[in-house]
């Protein structure tokens, strides 16, 4: 009996899965058909099979992995620096009047600056190598992280602070024992917001200034009119984005098991 129940369930799950992806399947099949029949110019839309072929080819030849490694390295180092600075500045400006007085207006003004527009500036200052990309990623990711850390710290329930106080926690220990853990969800949210920004900046920088990486691979596809390479690079970017998003989520789930 148990068997039949689980089989019934599996079937149900299968049907649900089918419902949720049938539209994608239709579109993919249409893509292949339309491209194979030549209804759309090859350069605009090469058949899906060609794109996948190119993807496999680029991956096997190592170009794709190499590019992905470059991109990830730049995005990660920048994001990491932004996390360190952003969390410190954010938490301090919520807890310390002087820091808050100094940074609040700067954050208000700095946050809406489209950092992407600084790419030419950074090419000028730091050249076009890895450093300028990493620094710009750090600058771009700093704002959301700092703002979220600040707001999360400000929003810590006063009763929690009072609870700790009455049980004998000193001012200094308060930060570690209460403020940081209580603000952790907000801080992580800031990092989650910053992650796609780090990728955006890296990609655009690679497209504009070259130096390898997935962005360069993609724009090279455009420059040499190899549209399958463009699509394949986007597949890779999608996978990278997906993996990073999942990764952050699972870190969050593990770290914030209590939420």
């Amino acid at each position, binding site marked *: 009996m148990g068997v039949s129940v689980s089989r019934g369930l599996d079937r149900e799950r299968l049907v649900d899965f089918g419902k949720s992806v049938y539209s994608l399947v239709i579109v993919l099949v249409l893509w292949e058909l339309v491209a194979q029949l030549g209804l759309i110019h090859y350069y605009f839309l090469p058949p899906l099979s060609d794109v996948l072929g190119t993807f496999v080819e680029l991956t096997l030849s190592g170009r794709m992995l190499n590019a992905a490694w470059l991109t990830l390295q730049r995005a990660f180092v920048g994001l990491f620096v932004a996390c360190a600075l952003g969390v410190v500045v954010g938490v301090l400006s919520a807890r310390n009047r002087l820091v808050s007085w100094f940074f609040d207006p700067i954050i208000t003004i700095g946050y809406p600056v489209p950092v992407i527009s600084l790419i030419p500036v950074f090419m000028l200052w730091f*050249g076009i190598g890895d450093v300028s990309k990493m620094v710009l990623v750090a600058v771009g990711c700093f704002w959301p992280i700092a703002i979220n850390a600040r707001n999360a710290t400000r929003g810590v329930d006063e009763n929690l602070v009072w609870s700790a106080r009455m049980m004998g926690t000193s001012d200094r220990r308060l930060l570690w024992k209460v403020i940081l853990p209580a603000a952790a969800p907000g801080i992580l949210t800031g990092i989650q917001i910053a992650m796609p920004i780090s990728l955006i900046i890296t990609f655009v920088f690679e497209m504009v200034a070259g130096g390898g990486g997935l962005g360069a691979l993609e724009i090279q596809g455009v420059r*040499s009119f190899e549209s399958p390479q463009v699509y394949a690079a986007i597949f890779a970017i999608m996978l990278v984005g997906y993996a990073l998003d999942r990764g952050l989520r699972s870190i969050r789930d593990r770290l914030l098991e209590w939420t």
Partner: protein
Amino acid sequence: LGLGLGGGGSSTLGLAFTVPVENLGSLLDIPEIQDQAGNLGDAYQLEVSQNSSTPDSLNQMAAGEVDMALLTTVSYASAVQQEAVPGNISMIATDFWDAHPEHYGFTIYSKGDSDVTEVADLEGKKLGVNSLGTGIHAVYVKRLRQADIDPENDVQFVELPFPSFTSAIKDGRVDAGIYPALFAVQARSEGFNPVFSSQDTWDEEYPFAYMAASNSSLDEKSDAFQAFGEDYRGIVDYAFNNRDEVVSLAAEHFELPESLVDGFFLTEQDYYREDVRIDFERLQAAMDEMANLGFIDESFDVQQFATNEYLPQGSS
């Protein structure tokens, strides 16, 4: 957001160029020069725009945003091969030639006191290039191979915009850079060393930059193109006959120092560009070489993708 200028009954031709002054077609962006085009305004209207790279121009052509564009060896070759523009494209005029013995050819410069003085010294160095996979990049690749240096592994290419080459060489971010005519003026005045030039690389001159149009535009607006071809020929003649005036007009219009433009335009420091008609033989040779160097998969018959029929007969 179609900002059709003028309009009237005549068709509008969209033209995209990349480098001011160096691309002769860019002169058409200057109103005073447009006044010299007799058919313009009657037989056709013209919309001129500037792009940051030739692939951008090709994509604009593919999307139907412009009808013709200035291209260079590799962008033309790969566009034809990949049929990047639906219905493909045809070259309708030459813009300039590279490696002509009596004219400027792409030259690689290093700093005046640098120990990089000849091709062999480039091994293991950082080389400035505007963009990989272009005809300019091909000059490097061809010469390095001749000198037994592997362009993939033995040197490091650094992509930089041309205007920042000089400062990049000066503060050592790259060891050498390849200069087009417009920027070479500055390199010379800084006292940079020429390491090698395309004349050392190619045995013979070859057409490097071209005016190309999409076949569908040529079909739809053939009368307009005919009239444009005549005007284009006329403008080139006008430029040669009134050099000084054109130099100051161009400098003013593109906001460049007049001395800079005067330092090369239509002198022996400029490319060879007297004849805008297409030389099929040399073009075929250039395309074969691009295939040889691996910039395109295989060569093709240029007769099918180039035509002189829009240019008036006779020399200029």
